């Protein structure tokens, strides 16, 4: 067998997407309900008492941050469980013994996880239109950020799934690192609202750049420049890619 194993990539992608359909309620409906609750609480109850941020009312301002919050958590969760579960059940032997390269395997798993996240992001976007007035100044950039963030954090989730030795470790990074960074990364506020030194400290949080870039694609305004947002997101993508290549080269936590 020579060339790219397209059948193998498609088999993994289809299997992972079928898993989503089997757990449709958990995979799609739960994040939609959770996000709607955010809109009701932060957008409706609390947001009505907050002034506009720049030229954007607070309810609309929340939309990119909430989508980004879901993208990060869903991408990590989907990709990490996708590779961790075969390790846990022992079915990983089939992946390791198949004529499929590391890159092809990653395309299958990460592609499926990113697809799910993008679908969820779009569903949240549509849901939000029922709660707040929406405008998207740069739709192509919005879609590009949606895809880039989903792929990057699906790769990050894939790494966590390989690293994790148990379900506790599987949840520890998203719960103790990603969610706090997202909450502190300007999902619900502009970092310009923070006093110094917290504003400067926030600039070391990579999620700030993701949220800011995504928000720029909606309203043409962000906490940092679009160049910085793209640069940091691209850098994180390359870092994840490098780690995955190293994992497959060394067989880290996959092979004895």
């Amino acid at each position: 067998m020579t060339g790219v194993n397209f059948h193998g990539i498609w088999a993994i992608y289809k299997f992972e997407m079928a898993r989503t359909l089997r757990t449709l309620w958990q995979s799609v409906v739960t994040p939609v309900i959770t996000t709607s609750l955010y809109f009701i609480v932060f957008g409706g109850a609390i947001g009505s008492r907050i002034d506009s941020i720049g030229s954007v009312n607070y309810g609309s301002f929340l939309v990119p941050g909430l989508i980004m919050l879901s993208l990060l958590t869903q991408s990590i969760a989907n990709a990490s469980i996708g590779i961790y579960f075969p390790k846990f059940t022992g079915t990983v032997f089939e992946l390791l013994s198949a004529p499929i390269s590391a890159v092809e395997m990653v395309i299958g798993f990460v592609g499926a996880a990113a697809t799910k996240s993008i679908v969820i992001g779009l569903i949240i976007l549509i849901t939000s239109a029922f709660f707040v007035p929406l405008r998207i100044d740069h739709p192509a950039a919005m879609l590009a950020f949606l895809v880039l963030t989903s792929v990057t954090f699906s790769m990050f989730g894939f790494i966590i799934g390989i690293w994790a030795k148990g379900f506790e470790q599987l949840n520890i990074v998203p719960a103790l690192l990603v969610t706090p960074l997202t909450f502190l990364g300007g999902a619900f506020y502009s970092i310009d609202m923070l006093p110094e030194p917290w504003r400067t400290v926030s600039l070391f949080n990579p999620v700030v750049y993701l949220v800011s870039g995504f928000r720029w694609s909606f309203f043409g305004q962000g906490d940092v420049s679009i160049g910085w947002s793209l640069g940091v997101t691209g850098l994180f993508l390359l870092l994840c890619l490098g780690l995955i290549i190293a994992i497959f080269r060394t067989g880290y936590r996959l092979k004895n």
Partner: protein
Amino acid sequence: MQSILSVSQVSKTYGSGHKALDHVDLEIRRGEIFALLGPNGAGKTTLISIICGIVTPSTGTILVDGHDAIRHPREARSRIGLVPQEIAVDMFSTVASTMRFSRGLFGKKPDQAYLDQVLKDLSLWDKRDAKIMELSGGMKRRVMIAKALSHQPEILFLDEPTAGVDVSLRRDMWKMIGKLREQGTTIILTTHYIEEAEEMADRVGVINKGQLLLVEEKAVLMKKLGKREMDIALVEPMTAVPVELNEWHLSLEDEGHRLRYVFDAQAERTGIPSLLRKLADLGIGFKDLDTSKSSLEDIFVDLVEHKEASNEGAVA
């Protein structure tokens, strides 16, 4: 006959320092059934896992149909199907969908007609739309075989294929393995059931403590190493073997009711006529004679024990 699999100087030392394989050399002939025998922890599964790409060898080379399994894993792996010891399959998938997944994973384009035939051959046709979690243990094991066959491998590894399977299903699997061989598939199986190797294998390899002790044609092995036993049923039981019979090294069995004589069937002189004459001279009456040949299991146990004894001797 041409080799389809060539294992050369393969060793494996795990991170813990445990040496699972020690410079193993093995040639597998195209189209044969090869049985790898060995006690628990002998290195059977490690060897299979290395060939299939699941475990990385410390040293050595593996050629699968001429393709280096480490440098060109894609070409090598596409020719191999593996049925692991444990039932490891996504329990939420249906039988048919998990087979389609395996075929796709190994880079083969869809061929429902072929998969349907495999389902029928393995008596899984009626269960094709059932979720795997709903199947019995025996059926799940068939699904594992169906998955391994779904990409039409030239070499099929069966790691303890009938462990925990009832006698009837075991017989069915033996028939199925025979049929695969007729179709040209090379089969390598590890087993604890010596009768399985005795029933099916063309050649037998014995591995213990990471070392391949021997590889031999099954028939030649049984002929070469096979011993025969003769049980002599006595008219009157005895408490000890008379000293006059010492040269035959007899043992007393069944609370003194039987004398057992172990002899080499291939030897020019078996010693049986002289033994019977001596018994008559001593007035020891017997009412029955029963001879039996040693099984592959006896040979295997002898080999492993002999090797262990010689190793202990070397250490001492």
